[in-house]
């Protein structure tokens, strides 16, 4: 397959970016989107022009679990396929000869570092503000079976916990809201008996931090749910809102 690629190039956070056009030929429909970019990069490198540097993009596990890859492809976070990260996207989802636009996440709390790489450390800071259970890690804890948890409850907590922190939900949201990400963590812990003790403090702190970092608020557009590669449900946002309101009552 052959493609025309329009890729966002930006030297660093200060300089202005622009779209650059590349042509690429003979790509197997079974290769992944990132493998296609690898091939393109090797072509750029082989040209050996010192000023035409390969395209920087984030990736690591390449199996949809680390949350490192990002990319806005043809106007969609993680590309045209649903429930997929960019690294799991394959070229068979594109048409031969198609022009493909590739951009970084665009959101103020995710400043661009270079080309397609953005800084998502604001997510870390939200977790640091309270996305944990304050148990020490070296002591003796009670036996894991001492507090039974209903299967239903455990499954629900698990579904919330599968968020990979990729940031697609923020990138697609017109308000740049991080509600889906934050609600997933808040819900996971609020649903488990172990997390209930600190639930009020946790939800308050995390929401406060989210606002401080410059994420917008949620207006129930629900695009986050549509583009989330892990299918995190907006139900958790409602759940978090309830938690939030309850945290003011005694």
């Amino acid at each position: 397959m052959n493609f025309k690629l329009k890729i966002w190039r930006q030297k660093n956070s200060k300089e202005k970016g622009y779209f650059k056009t590349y042509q690429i030929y003979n790509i197997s429909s079974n290769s992944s989107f990132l493998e296609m970019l690898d091939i393109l990069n090797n072509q750029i490198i082989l040209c050996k022009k010192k000023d035409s540097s390969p395209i920087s993009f984030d990736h690591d596990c390449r199996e949809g679990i680390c949350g490192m890859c990002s990319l806005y492809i043809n106007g969609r976070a993680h590309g045209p396929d649903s429930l997929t990260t960019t690294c799991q996207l394959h070229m068979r989802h594109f048409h031969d000869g198609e022009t493909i636009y590739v951009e970084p996440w665009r959101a103020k709390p995710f400043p661009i570092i270079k080309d397609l790489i953005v800084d998502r450390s604001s997510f870390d800071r939200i977790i640091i503000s309270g996305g944990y259970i304050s148990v020490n890690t070296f002591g003796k804890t009670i036996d894991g079976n001492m507090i039974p948890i209903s299967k239903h409850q455990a499954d629900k907590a698990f579904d919330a916990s599968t968020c990979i922190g990729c940031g697609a939900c923020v990138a697609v949201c017109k308000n740049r809201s991080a509600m889906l990400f934050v609600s997933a963590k808040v819900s996971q812990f609020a649903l488990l008996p172990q997390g209930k003790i600190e639930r009020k403090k946790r939800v308050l702190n995390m929401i406060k931090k989210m606002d401080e970092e410059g994420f917008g608020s949620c207006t129930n557009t629900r695009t986050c749910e549509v583009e989330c590669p892990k299918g995190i449900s907006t139900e958790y946002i409602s759940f978090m809102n309830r938690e939030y309101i309850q945290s003011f009552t005694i």
Partner: protein
Amino acid sequence: MKNSFKFHSEIPVTSLTHKWIDHKSTLKLVSPNNRSNIEIIVVGTGLAGGSAAASLSELGYRVKAFCYQDSPRRAHSVAAQGGINASKNYKGDNDSIYQLFYDTIKGGDYRSREANVYRLAEISSNIIDQCVAQGVPFARDYAGYLETRSFGGTKVSRTFYAKGQTGQQLLLACYSSMARQIGKGRIKMYNRHEMLDLVTVDGVAKGIIARNLISGKIEKHAAHAIVIASGGYGNIFFLSTNAMGSNASAIWKVHKKGGFFANPCYTQIHPTCIPIHGNYQSKLTLMSESLRNDGRIWVPNKLEDAVFLRNGSKKPEDISEENRDYYLERRYPSFGNLVPRDVASRAAKERCDKGFGIENNENKEGVFLDFSFSIEKYGKEKANELGIQQPSSLDKKKLGKKIMESKYGNLFHMYEKITNEDPYKTPMKIYPAVHYTMGGLWVDYNLMTSIPGCYVIGEANFSDHGSNRLGASALMQGLADGYFILPYTIADYLSKCITEKISTKHIAFQQAEKNVKDRIQKLIQNNGNMPVDFFHKKLGNIMWKYVGMSRNHIGLCKAIKNIQELRYEFWKNVFVPGYVDDGLNSELEKAGRVADFLELGELMAMDALNRKESCGSHFREEYQTKEGEALRDDVHYKYVSVWEYRKNYPISDEIMHKEDLNFTFAKVQSRSYK
């Protein structure tokens, strides 16, 4: 040079069941008010590094943690699928510390340290409790208790899991514990930083040199002790199940500063990966081993059927029952599809070498993993439960599919994304791939390397897995090391450092910094013709062909020669774009890692050449039984091979020492999974 090194493995001399308890009680302590004066560097934030960083900072030490990703939450431990072992006997199948210990020792083909493995088994059940307390949503049964499943190589159900995302859940828990400490200011986190050298002063570890991957700045960091938790080196094969950034650089630099490297040739090949489908491919994807609980592995027993399957003129469903060869069930009736990974992998290779492979790729490699039986079985059970009289086969499929979904949903989804085939309808195609490295830096019972003050934990060390790690034991080891072992043993060393001031002023830091800068300069100014990937792929080919699933004398000698030539070629002809003072440059990062792989690869081949026996994952073709099973030589090779790098000598001149392995508790037997 004289072979004068004496091993101080520090293994206590009491009875096996008392070793850890007794040892702990003799370890020196650091009083709480002194701990805040002590700084510890932790390189890596996977399960091992993350749990260590969290625990050490909770104890009151000041911790600096490093990882090359943008967040500790993305360390490669996140990708582990199947589960984590612990001997809790919740299922009443007579599991015990001894059973877990015994299975692990046997699974490692009697090439691991008895004392370490016993300690691991002892600690295992604390890990589960700890993780539950941290909010890990492990699978639960309807009564609300923890659910388990069984894994290859065992006859009990001791693997705790969270669907196919166990590693993710364990890592996120450990990351959140770290986050809590980062918030308190006790851990200083250095994201997107890569350790490029270890600094030693008078042979003692005192710090590291790291590159800030965003700004490109080379930084010096001093500490009272260094903990390396940088994961495994399977990426040396280019195609592996590891993350793209997984590397050996941190441990290789420690090796070159005097840290001994143990058992480098032990590489685990995982039997259930998606087969290679093209030369553009950048990595292989694992399908968790837990699938073997519900999948039956087969190839056709007629060669012509294999041809039809490969060219697509027949579908797996078209091959009738009697024309299928369930070769694992045939050869190993007692373990069947659940034989250990090395056995399952070699059996697949044997069938494909004979021409029965079913995937239409370059080497015609691939076998089926078929779930139709389990879907049918579960569907029937569920229909009975629901009281459906004479369910149609469609009903059963539907009900069965639901159950499979709840067990392995994400894996099936992942498979479909990559291959465009629906494994609920047609069998998966799988083939073995490089997965895990059991070798690593040599450490003593306290997890300290041969360099005082430098500790290594998790996959980066060699200690607990022998020659064939079973499934679900790496996660266990990572967390045991980080949460429950290192925090005790490191105090013993640190107790001597409480008044010591650290600084990066020492000449050793300037020297190491200069070396790192020189190397970067050399890479960038080399101005060769080929990109880094070209060399990495070539190295991977050599490794897979000669140092992969089976090895022989001629092949290994060839590998050593080819790697030497490739290394020469690399330094002559690699092209790394960009400028020295640029910031982010992923090609430069890769180049440094591949340069290190090009040295380690030679050592792996040397180690494999030296070990003239077959054990676990190390299969030397010259040493096999008549039935084609691995033939161990306990008389001559019951040791850990421990390699010492000699400054200013080539890799081929490294010296090998032996640490003898003694088994007092476990009876050394030949492994049989018949």
